[in-house]
């Protein structure tokens, strides 16, 4: 499986040595699963702290392999559909608080590697997840089909042959598993839609799901164009800006769970993509 994956990537010109970390584990960290699905005082991934939004409160569910309260009874196809299409095994659509619009851009091989990691490397924990508490009319899940029809159109992340392998890997990690745009891009349709591909990573004043997030484009004035790759590595691994400031808020969780634990090489790829003018 792993060999096939590597061979395929190599064939695409995306040779990616694991640098001491299996692909599934890398995707697990970068996907930030723990930031939403874990909370203090409970077993890892057995359900996260309530996510309070103007639409109501979401309760990120248990995603451990526990068959009763987690995703232990799922098949691989169930997982591929959840991540790739945003549809639960029972056929109901997920709320986009679960950033499936980004995950849906991942390759099938990567989703399988992530599934294998969640199945084999996460301890099952029996802990039921409470249902979401949303206000009317958002509490009606059927309405999500309209949302999907209007907005959900995931584009695969095609490698850019004009760029090197590191840039392409960075672009993939940022746009797919890293789901950076979910907070750092403004959403279409006054905050109701998907991260706007026309203003990718251009900063978000805050919308119905996420708080405000700065622009992280390569623009030297509005974005992070003045950062060096080393600055960005320090920030993504420690949470420290070049001014010695340490982030709090959601980004602190991203650093702790997602960009901190991954190999320096993956961070360098992310920096290559983020800092190169597009």
């Amino acid at each position, binding site marked *: 499986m792993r060999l096939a994956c590597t061979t395929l990537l190599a064939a695409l010109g995306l040779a990616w040595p694991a640098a001491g970390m299996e692909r599934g584990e890398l995707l697990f960290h970068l996907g930030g699963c723990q930031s939403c699905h874990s909370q203090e005082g409970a077993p890892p991934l057995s359900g996260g702290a309530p996510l309070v939004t103007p639409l109501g409160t979401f309760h990120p569910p248990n995603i451990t392999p526990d068959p009763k309260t987690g995703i232990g009874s799922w098949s691989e196809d169930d997982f591929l559909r959840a991540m790739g299409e945003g549809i639960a095994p029972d056929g109901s659509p997920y709320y986009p608080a679960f950033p499936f619009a980004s995950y849906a851009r991942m390759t099938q091989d990567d989703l399988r590697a992530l599934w294998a990691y969640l199945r084999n490397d996460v301890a099952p924990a029996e802990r039921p997840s409470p249902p979401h508490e949303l206000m009317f009319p958002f509490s009606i899940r059927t309405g999500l089909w309209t949302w999907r029809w209007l907005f959900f159109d995931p584009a695969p992340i095609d490698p850019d042959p004009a760029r090197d392998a590191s840039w392409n890997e960075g672009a993939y990690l940022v746009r797919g598993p890293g789901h950076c745009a979910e907070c750092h891009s403004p959403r279409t349709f006054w905050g109701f839609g998907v991260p706007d591909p026309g203003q990718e990573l251009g*900063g978000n004043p805050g919308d119905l799901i996420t*708080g*405000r*997030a*700065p622009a992280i484009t390569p623009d030297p004035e509005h974005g992070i164009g003045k950062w060096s790759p080393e600055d960005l590595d*320090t920030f993504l691994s*420690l*949470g*420290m*800006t*070049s*001014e*010695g*400031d*340490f*982030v*709090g*808020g*959601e*980004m*602190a969780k991203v*650093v*702790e769970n997602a960009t901190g634990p991954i190999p320096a090489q993956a961070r360098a790829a992310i920096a290559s993509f983020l800092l190169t003018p597009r």
Partner: protein
Amino acid sequence: MRLSRYAAILAVVAGAVLATGSILAADGVIAKRQADMKAMGKEMGGIKDTLAAKGDLAKVQAHAEAIRKILAEVPALFPAGSDTGPTDALPAIWSDQAGFDSAVERADGLADALGTAAGTGEIAAATAAFAALGKNGCGGCHQSYRKPQG
């Protein structure tokens, strides 16, 4: 009759002056604490540079001491009433004063631990202590008591 009108005007003017004064005072303390936070950031940047260059750990100790000196002043820089104005401080600082004070104490303890680790001359220990200070000291406090930046 007239006198009471004078008194009323005087009271309004005096009130306005006092209010302006307290706003200016709050702005002053806000500017001071922002400068102090920036100064601590600079010390942290210095530590990072020294560690990255595998430089003199005595410098790291000095930076850690400087941070502790600034931290000792921090609780007094958030007096009641300084929650409005050009500040990113969250109301939790004043509604949960004990929590805020203990977060500052935790940062101080981590800065102390960094000084001790640097004193052993082991770069790995100092690096770990530095990361802990940044994440749980600086970042820990920003997580609960500062508005998200950006």
